[in-house]
């Protein structure tokens, strides 16, 4: 579904991403984890087209989208959420979704009156638990609601691959569990999910496979249980050299 190969991004002399390959299968929930500064966010921004890669290709359903602009990638089937919430605070909840509703429909849909597509967006609001907040300004929502609206807005763009950039940051355990249910529901509806996350309760509890990044490279890939027992991953996360540990 989503195929990243030989992805490289240098910022001046900093090799933020230094040759990453991974493939997300259709209908899969794929985790991308790694310590701070390992290149996760840069990878997300490369896949979404915020940055142009130094080298490498990104394909979706076999189609090369490496050179497409961000909005072109949405049309190709990728939508994302942001690590630091980026809603349109001066627009209402409903208008935030409306902006994202980009399906082809020509000038008539572009100028369509609100009422006609309200029901379609209403379903997404229901899913995000925001139906009662439809006419509230996005900037006036609570933190948890803003996170949910970001997810809803990405879904409203009708992607086939959904990129979630640290969606659980700042959430309590109950909210993380709700998020986990929502991600599973999206997958059940046929979406492929790429989840970049620090919160291990979420990553380990929802993903099918995980790739681990460190210093801009992939150091491991496998199922959650394989990753949890991988010595390289433990070293990257805990900073522990197992041999030295054993010598004590």
């Amino acid at each position, binding site marked *: 579904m989503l195929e990243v190969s030989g992805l490289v991004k240098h910022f001046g002399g900093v090799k933020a991403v230094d040759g990453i390959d991974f493939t997300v299968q259709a209908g899969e929930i794929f985790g991308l984890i790694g310590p701070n500064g390992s290149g996760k966010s840069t990878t997300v921004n490369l896949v979404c087209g915020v940055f142009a890669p130094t080298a490498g290709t990104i394909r979706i359903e076999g189609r090369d989208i490496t050179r497409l602009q961000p909005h072109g990638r949405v049309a190709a089937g990728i939508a994302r959420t942001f690590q630091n919430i980026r809603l349109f605070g001066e627009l209402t909840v409903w208008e935030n979704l409306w902006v994202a509703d980009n399906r082809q429909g020509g000038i008539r849909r572009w*100028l369509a009156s609100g009422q006609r597509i309200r029901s379609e967006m209403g379903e997404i609001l229901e899913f995000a638990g925001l139906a009662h907040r439809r006419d509230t300004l996005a900037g006036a929502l609570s933190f948890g609601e803003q996170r949910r609206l970001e997810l809803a807005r990405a879904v409203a763009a009708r992607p086939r691959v959904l990129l979630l950039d640290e969606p659980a940051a700042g959430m309590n355990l109950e909210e993380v569990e709700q998020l986990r249910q929502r991600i599973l529901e999206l997958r059940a509806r046929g979406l492929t999910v790429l989840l970049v996350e620090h919160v291990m309760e979420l990553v380990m509890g929802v993903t099918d496979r995980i790739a681990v990044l460190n210093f801009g490279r992939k150091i491991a890939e496998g199922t959650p249980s394989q990753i949890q027992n991988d010595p390289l991953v433990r070293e990257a996360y805990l900073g522990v050299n197992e041999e030295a540990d054993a010598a004590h």
Partner: protein
Amino acid sequence: MDFYAGLAQVIGIHTLLGLSAYCVLLTGQVSIAQAGFFAIGAYTAGVMTVIGDAHILTAIVTGAAAAGVVAALIGFPALRVRGLMLVVATVAFGEAVRLLFFNFTWRVEKDGVMVGPTGTEGFRQIRYFPENGWSTLDVTLLIWAVTALVLAALWWMDRSRAGAVLRATGADELAAQSVGVSITAVKVSAMAIGGVIAGLGGGLYAHVTTHIEHAQFGVMLATFAIAYPILGGLSSVFGTVLAVIFVQGFLIEGLRFMGDWRNLLFGALIVLAMNLRPSGLLDAQGLRVLGNLFKRKERGHA
């Protein structure tokens, strides 16, 4: 009576100028080029009626189209700069247009008289209205018909999805792009629509004053254009109308009795107005109050 008709004409034309800046401002672009588009509309429409013997509506529409095309062309390089750099770039464009008309001469003999734009002397004798027997009232009605049409179109656009997309682009370009909005298309369209509206205003202005010259289209006019929507607030098109009435009707005409003190008070009152209503004369809350008033009336009738 003539005084009030004249004031109504000025308010109508300046409303068009303010609205042209309004729709560009919605996308987060501060453009000081609107006076340039206004000038292009004025000169094009003037040449059409004086040299081309065109009907006034044909002339005004052609002037608006010319301004719109130039604005769209300006929209592309303007995409690469933002904030203060865009202000500087658009000021430069506006001055370039003004200097173009400073040097623009196209003299044609009509009934034994030389007419047409004459460089530094300006473009005199744009006498379509008096020659065709239009009264002051007719002209005022034409101006307000055009203004009302533009107001209605923008009001409708604001409430459609296009309005949400323009505002979203102005609020956060990266977020807008990542839900599939083409920033290029949105910004260039807003610039072109702004150009068309400014061009309409310019075409009317040329025929109302009958005499235009480069100095009228300088940075001062461009500053007024951008000040109206900022002063009025970006919540709705009516904020801009309110700001034009406040500035042209109250500050400029209403305070005329103050003589030389007027200009001093003018500045002070604008600062005061912006301090008392920081998000515009007519902000979102003001609109809600007005909306509730209307709703209550409707309920009363039912």
